């Protein structure tokens, strides 16, 4: 597949996800570009 073939599938899917994430109910979410880790006492191992 060429660039255009892939974009014709991926961009509509990315647009749909973008529309969903742009909804007001998700306004408080920030991008998780790098994870911040919990403190060790928050980690539970059974």
């Amino acid at each position, binding site marked *: *597949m*060429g*660039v255009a073939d*892939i*974009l014709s*599938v*991926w*961009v509509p*899917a*990315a*647009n*749909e*996800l*973008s529309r*969903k*994430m*742009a909804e007001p109910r*998700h306004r408080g*979410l*920030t*991008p*998780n*570009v*790098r*994870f911040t*880790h*919990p403190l*060790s006492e928050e*980690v*539970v*191992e*059974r």
Partner: protein
Amino acid sequence: MSTATRGLHQHTLLQAAQLVEHRKVSPVELTDTVLKQIERAEPKINAFITVLAEQARAVAKAHEGMIAAGYYLGPLHGIPIALKDNLYTKGVRSTAGSKVLGDFVPEEDATVTARLKAAGAIIIGKTNMHEFAWGGTTDNPHYGPTRNPWDPRRFPAGSSGGSGAAVAARECFGAIGTDTGGSIRLPSAVNGVTGIRPTIGRVSNYNIVPLAWSMDTAGPMTRTVADCATMFNFIAGHDPKDEASARIPVSDYTAQLNRGVKGIRIGIVPDYFFTHLQPPVHDAVRGALRVLEGQKAEVVEVEIANIHGNISAQLTIESAEPSTYHQHWLRTRPQDYGDDVRVLLEVGEMLLATHYLQAQRYRTLLRHEFVEAFENVDVFICPTLPFVATPVGDMKVVIEGGKEEDMLSAIMQYTGVPSLTGLPSMSVPCGFSPDGLPIGMQIIGKPFDEATIFRVGHAYQQATDWHTREPNL
């Protein structure tokens, strides 16, 4: 078959380690038997880019002397291990499966490489991989395709396809892979071996050629869960050289292996985990759940409201970040990339910044939903991928209804979820298709709770024998 009657290369890592510890076998013997197996198997599967025969024999000889003098370092001492070729190895070519880095000889090890060497492991070679880890087939245009030991006409998945095939073919006792969107778990599943993608930050990425910075991880691939936990003990933990490395203390990952699964709550998401997959995969994973229920684990149905959309988010992030890393080479050496990877890198430059950031915001949403769900379950279980190994070279796959689908999107159906959420996840063999191809299931755990994943996987392997079967090469 007893350990006494099998070839040494057929032993598990821990079986071999016991023989070394009790001086019944020397590291030199182990290295020689593995190198002979590599000679036998490589013409059929092409799992290695570089085999370090001479160096490995020299190191084995040195370790033999250490052990004879009483300097035993632990269960990796004298054990031949393979590394994916995107891990830096000091003084040894590290290509990342590319022509671009075809002559790259690092002056320093990756932290994972250094930790394995410090534990006494013998680096037997560098394994083949999808070029720059950007793809799931290991159909490498520069070093040739790796083939599946269970059927060399089939692919080993990827991108750590060489590591998966080498472990399955008994060319090493364990290997290191890297996993961004599924690249440890996918080849573990289709080659019938065990492999864990750790929590992001648990294992150092220092001096590993990146694919997508925000999702990259490295982890062990072995024949058994116990072997996997043993290797994990040596590579997990904070690394000041990796600024994304977590400061959370590590466990002894072998300590809880035998606690069983009584009372463990296993989450499943029925409308995602068990839809759109080939029937043998469905049946094998359902069968595995019944085995665990038979050991008094409880299966709990869970709804993850926003699980749909994860594949688009995965592809967007896994496109934009590599295209950023490769921007200079893509402009100066485009002819040195294979066609498929070059096209994907060009695609990554065409996506909008808002696509990328909305995908990253989606990760936050999906992670919140899983973390909340983990208040009621201890692990999730699902298939590793929805189909069995396809023919080498195929870029399309049929999952259901005779409809051809793009391989890259289809192969990430289940592995993308832990990748996006940063959760640890292990693939464990759980059956075979009617034509003898391995099937794997994923055990997904809470952040930094790899110990429970190992515990569940080990309990499953105590009740089944899928992981003991060998390909007939």
